[in-house]
């Protein structure tokens, strides 16, 4: 079982290099896309198998448990949840891409970069030491910069350059924070840093400086509101499967997951960090929603809505940290907050990638991304429209779909922890989200077809399979709430809370 953990990283990375090689080997060229699909599928199966394995600590490269150095891979409840999310969304996206990417040249390059990004994200969620976390954040980020610019049109290059500059500055701040923590504690391993910080005291100025640098860098990767400027340009400019990966999992794996891991597992909860998370989550929720309602470009609306929905997750994490940092830590409320937040993270990954993929298939058939030029697509593209509608209902929190349950749990947890104002804002943003997606339904699917979309036809089968796959999860995750909680979310929350004293 332990041997499977490094394979989760090695398999996609190895397959990426293999694809680059066979792309230059004549007749083997056709195998690149099937190989990419196979690699992601095997990775998903391994991640699923590890669910029943308990928490694993694997030391790579001959280092042992007793040594202060070494590369540790930690596969606990939270890592397992993230591995399932990453590889499942990656599978849906790469299946969608088999048909969608046909209009591009050099698809092998896309496949290789896609696998690099997937493998690096799997490594980010498995990393047990801070420097490894930084390195794999960078690998995932470099692949994503190149993928945003994949079309090489002027808008795409402009968005990718903006993303590249801001992302690199963010990474430099993460490394700065890691350096400061190393100089204070002499460790890179997360558990050991956390132990050493308890003796130094979490309020000493050096620790706060290091913590602030890391949190600022990670918030930039998660596109929380003061740092969100790159996201609405970068996510819509990428090809649709990549938009789904970026909005669905990249901002979560390299932003939200890393924030949660660093705050709970390394720095230790303190009112400073809790308040920063709450403030960023709140601002993102509200501003993201207002900016999204005003958009007329379908993919841009979805990108702003990502900022708003990720705000919910960060808010829930912040309130959990706040509940644990009180004089009398309230573990039950913190666990409920984390359950809601992580469930919303899972749900947002499914329905936002579903909506981005649906927008891609609509864009391909209708040749437009502007809402006002679409219309009447529910008759022209029945499968895509049905899936798009389920995704929109889920994200706007209509029962019995999954988005309703996660928002409900977050709001109940906010009330229980005594934050009635935050709960009211949460309800308000949920109503705003509903309005935003009623607008999408009204302009895209209903009404009379305009001349521009009269020729639109149903998307090819491969794209529909990917959409249906995500739709099934959207419907089932809401109904299978209790088994999913026991299998995925309770161990994930325990992994975060268990790291605290």
């Amino acid at each position, binding site marked *: 079982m332990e041997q499977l953990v490094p394979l989760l990283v090695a398999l996609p990375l190895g397959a990426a290099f293999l694809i680059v090689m066979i792309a230059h080997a004549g007749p083997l060229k056709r195998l690149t896309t099937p190989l990419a699909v196979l690699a992601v599928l095997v990775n998903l199966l391994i991640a699923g198998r590890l669910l029943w394995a308990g928490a694993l600590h694997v030391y790579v490269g001959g280092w042992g448990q007793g040594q202060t150095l070494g590369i540790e891979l930690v596969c606990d409840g939270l890592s397992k949840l993230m591995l399932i999310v990453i590889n499942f969304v990656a599978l849906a996206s790469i299946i969608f891409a088999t048909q969608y990417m046909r209009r591009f040249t050099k698809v092998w390059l896309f496949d290789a970069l896609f696998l690099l990004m997937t493998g690096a994200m799997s490594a980010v969620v498995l990393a047990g030491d801070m420097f490894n976390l930084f390195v794999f954040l960078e690998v995932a980020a*470099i692949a994503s910069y190149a993928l945003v610019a994949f079309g090489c049109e*002027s808008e795409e290059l402009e968005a990718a350059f903006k993303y*590249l500059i801001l992302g690199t500055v963010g990474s430099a701040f993460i490394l700065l924070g890691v350096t400061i923590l190393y100089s204070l504690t002499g460790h890179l391993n997360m558990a050991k840093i956390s132990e050493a910080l308890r003796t130094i005291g979490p309020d000493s100025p050096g620790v706060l400086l290091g913590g602030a640098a890391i949190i600022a860098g990670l918030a930039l990767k998660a596109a929380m509101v003061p740092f969100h400027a790159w996201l609405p340009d970068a996510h819509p400019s990428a090809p649709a499967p990549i938009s789904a990966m970026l909005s669905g999992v990249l901002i979560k794996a390299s932003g939200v997951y890393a924030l949660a891991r660093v705050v709970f597992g390394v720095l230790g909860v303190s009112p400073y960090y809790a308040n920063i998370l709450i403030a960023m989550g709140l601002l993102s929720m509200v501003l993201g929603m207002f900016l999204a309602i005003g958009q007329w470009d379908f993919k841009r609306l979805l990108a702003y809505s990502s900022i708003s929905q990720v705000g919910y997750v960060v808010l829930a994490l912040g309130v959990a940290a706040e509940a644990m940092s009180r004089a009398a830590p309230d573990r039950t409320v913190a666990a409920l907050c984390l359950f809601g937040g992580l469930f919303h993270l899972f749900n947002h990954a499914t329905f936002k990638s579903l909506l981005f993929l649906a927008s891609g298939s609509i864009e391909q058939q209708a040749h437009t991304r502007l809402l006002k030029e679409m219309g009447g697509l529910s008759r022209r593209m029945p499968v895509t429209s049905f899936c798009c509608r389920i995704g929109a209902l889920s994200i706007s929190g209509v029962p019995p779909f999954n988005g309703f349950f996660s928002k409900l749990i977050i709001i109940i947890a906010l009330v229980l922890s005594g934050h009635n104002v935050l709960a009211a804002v949460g309800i308000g943003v949920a109503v705003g989200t509903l309005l935003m997606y009623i607008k999408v339904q009204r302009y895209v699917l209903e009404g009379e077809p305009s001349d521009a979309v009269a020729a639109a036809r149903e998307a090819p089968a491969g794209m529909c399979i990917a959409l249906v796959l995500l739709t099934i999860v959207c419907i089932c995750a809401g109904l299978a709430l209790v088994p999913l909680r026991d299998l995925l979310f309770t161990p994930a929350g325990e992994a975060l809370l268990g790291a605290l004293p």
Partner: protein
Amino acid sequence: MGITIYLLTFAVLLVGLYIVVAKKNIIKIIVGVLIIDYAVNLLLVLVGYRSDGVAPILSPGQTAADLAETGVDPLPQAMVLTSIVIGLGITALMVSMAIRLHQKYGTFDMNRIRKLRG
């Protein structure tokens, strides 16, 4: 030397940050990002430094404990090496994107490269 060298490193970081925020020329922005990168690498080396320390190479007859007494910390040096390699990859990507942007827009001025709206 004391704290001065750390303050100077911090000043280098601020110079880079100022360039990224204030300048509008793509090439200058790239230089700014590189300066930030160098400042962080410099800090990383400084963290492992000790005055009068020797290079952390184990000579014959010397035990690891002896070396730990006199040598500088080798771990930050390994990290700096990794960080420099990542910086190289990022620089190559930034420069190639700048070339492509120049082909499309015919300028390096960020004020004239704005097809995307707010």
